[in-house]
């Protein structure tokens, strides 16, 4: 605010003696603009991260009148998490594994659908609106309530097995026959399992690719039509112009979308639920829960670095 009045006065009365150079005043104004973010980042994120690290290395006990005491215990909670905790390692690896399976599928699906929706056809606006619906309706609270009610109807079976039974009942085709047939043709078993699993999760994949789809659509819209025109005049087929124009032009957005998808699927994974329940559930193991969060965050960071390192080297940047 002071910066603003300062600049205002200087602007109106140039005869006044200047105290700061133009670039210094610009820098001050810039800092003033980003200051809310700086305060927020330091107060909530930086402080939070350091405190979580501190908690994970200590035994935390709450005082009855508020506040807490910390007793330093070193790496006890980390060792417990990896050596003794019944399910942590399992949940962590299965969350990471699910992510590794789903993210390529989501990326491929959203790019494919974006290319499809980018073409001119009747009802295009309507189709786009429908494809974005899952983003709107992706409320965990609603999903949980519906899952609970489904489980109740099936007489208290776990929601996961309920979904499986339902899916099996819906598909009146004998899937295992076809899978077996493909296997007999000599296709590798792992690849078959991946495809079958992907078909089983098609609902989840479609519903979690709404934002990515919109981003890819926007990227496709921003490609200059002149490029395609030139390619056509030079005699390129549609296939060639896809690999030589469309794909390189959207490749930077593949990195963006990959990061978004990884973070998004991680936030709703079981590891997060585990650490939330450990901290706020009945046991209230603050130190252990903090250790869980930090380990899972480290895992996510590792995956992000490896994945974006692999993909961004191949991405095409114009400048």
């Amino acid at each position, binding site marked *: 605010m002071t910066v603003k009045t300062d600049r205002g006065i200087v602007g*109106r009365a140039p005869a006044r003696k200047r105290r700061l150079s133009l670039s210094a005043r610009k820098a001050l*104004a810039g800092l003033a603009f980003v200051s809310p973010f700086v305060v927020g*980042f330091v107060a909530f994120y930086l402080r939070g991260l350091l405190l979580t690290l501190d908690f994970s290395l200590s035994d935390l006990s709450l005082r009855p009148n508020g506040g807490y005491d910390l007793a330093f215990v070193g790496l006890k909670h980390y060792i417990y998490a990896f050596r003794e905790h019944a399910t942590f390692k399992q949940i962590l690896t299965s969350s990471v594994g699910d992510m590794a399976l789903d993210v390529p599928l989501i990326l491929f699906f959203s790019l494919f659908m974006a290319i499809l929706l980018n073409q001119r056809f009747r009802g295009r*606006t309507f189709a786009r*609106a*429908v494809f974005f619906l899952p983003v709107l*309706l992706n409320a965990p609270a609603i999903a*949980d309530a519906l899952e609970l009610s489904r489980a109740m109807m099936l007489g208290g079976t776990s929601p996961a097995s309920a979904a499986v039974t339902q899916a099996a009942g819906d598909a009146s085709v004998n899937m295992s026959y076809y899978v077996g047939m493909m296997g007999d043709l000599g296709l590798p078993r792992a690849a078959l399992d991946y495809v079958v699993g992907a078909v089983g999760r098609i609902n989840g994949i479609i519903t979690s690719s709404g934002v990515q789809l919109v981003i890819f659509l926007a990227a496709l819209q921003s490609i200059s039509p002149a490029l395609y025109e030139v390619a056509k005049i030079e005699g390129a087929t549609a296939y060639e112009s896809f690999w030589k124009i469309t794909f390189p032009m959207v490749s930077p957005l593949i990195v963006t979308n990959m990061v978004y998808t990884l973070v998004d699927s991680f936030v709703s994974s079981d590891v997060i639920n585990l650490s939330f329940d450990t901290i706020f559930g009945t046991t209230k193991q603050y130190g252990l829960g903090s250790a869980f*969060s930090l380990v899972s965050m480290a895992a996510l960071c590792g995956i992000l670095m490896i994945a974006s390192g692999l993909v961004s080297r191949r991405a095409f940047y114009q400048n």
Partner: protein
Amino acid sequence: MHGATARNTRGRIISDAKSWALSLLRWALIVGVSYVIVSPLIGMAARSFFSNSDQFNPMVYLIPQTPTLERYQVALKVMGYADVLPRNLLFVGGLAVIQAFVCSMVGYGFARFNFPLKRVLFGCLIVMIVLPSHVIMLPLYMLFQRFDPLGLFALMGMEPPNMLASPWPMYIMTAFGAGLRSGLYIYIFTQFFRGLPKEIEEAAEIDGAGAFYTYLRVMLPNAAPSALTVLIFSVVWQFNDKFYAQLFSISPRIALSKQISGLQASVSNLYQLRDPSLTTLYLYAGVMLTIVPLLVLYIILQRRFIEGVERSGIVG
């Protein structure tokens, strides 16, 4: 001469057939995927009108024989819909406006000014986008349980206020650019302002406008597409948010999504309905009521929104 025309006609027929087959394939794909997206919604909407006899009649599929509005009446009452919805919309809308204002300001700062540590701070922004907020949940919980960031309350010998179960933690975090997905919004605005021509501001500056005035009166109106995108995303994600609502135990009186979790159990207790296949129908009605506000918003703004995303700077 004659042969050439025949070849032409044949070529045209082949290319016609090809494009026809392609568009058929496209339609099949789009209709199929749309079906996967929409069918649960249609199923729920239809079943929310089922009467008891419809629910137990295996011949009834989607279209009820004796439709009833009873599910909606009960759900409206149990959820306190008429009270909760306006409060919820006010909460979510207020947060969205703060998000758009603060994030556009910060984004403008990153896009147009050079200042020391700019690269470091931008790195912090990326960290914020990527960092799942569950890592800092315990410190946040404790911070707002005894909210005394500068030690003022302790200094005056007063007990610091407990902000949990109130909307304040969300407002405070959002106002400092650290709310739900604020990092992403800041990034969107930064990319958008980078794409605007510099001449606009230079003209304003020559006319004697200060930096803040330039931003407020010249740049912000130009950022309308981005602002619309951010507003909608913010409303939708905040409305559907479960993590912060759970962490800060935000009261069910301002959060419809919290009403949904307990709806089936409340109906079952209040009306002595023990059959889950009947109480589910009330849940369906409740879910429909919860998503209707978002659907209406989306239908009104749909076209402008998708265009807005395309011009908003997500893509850069």
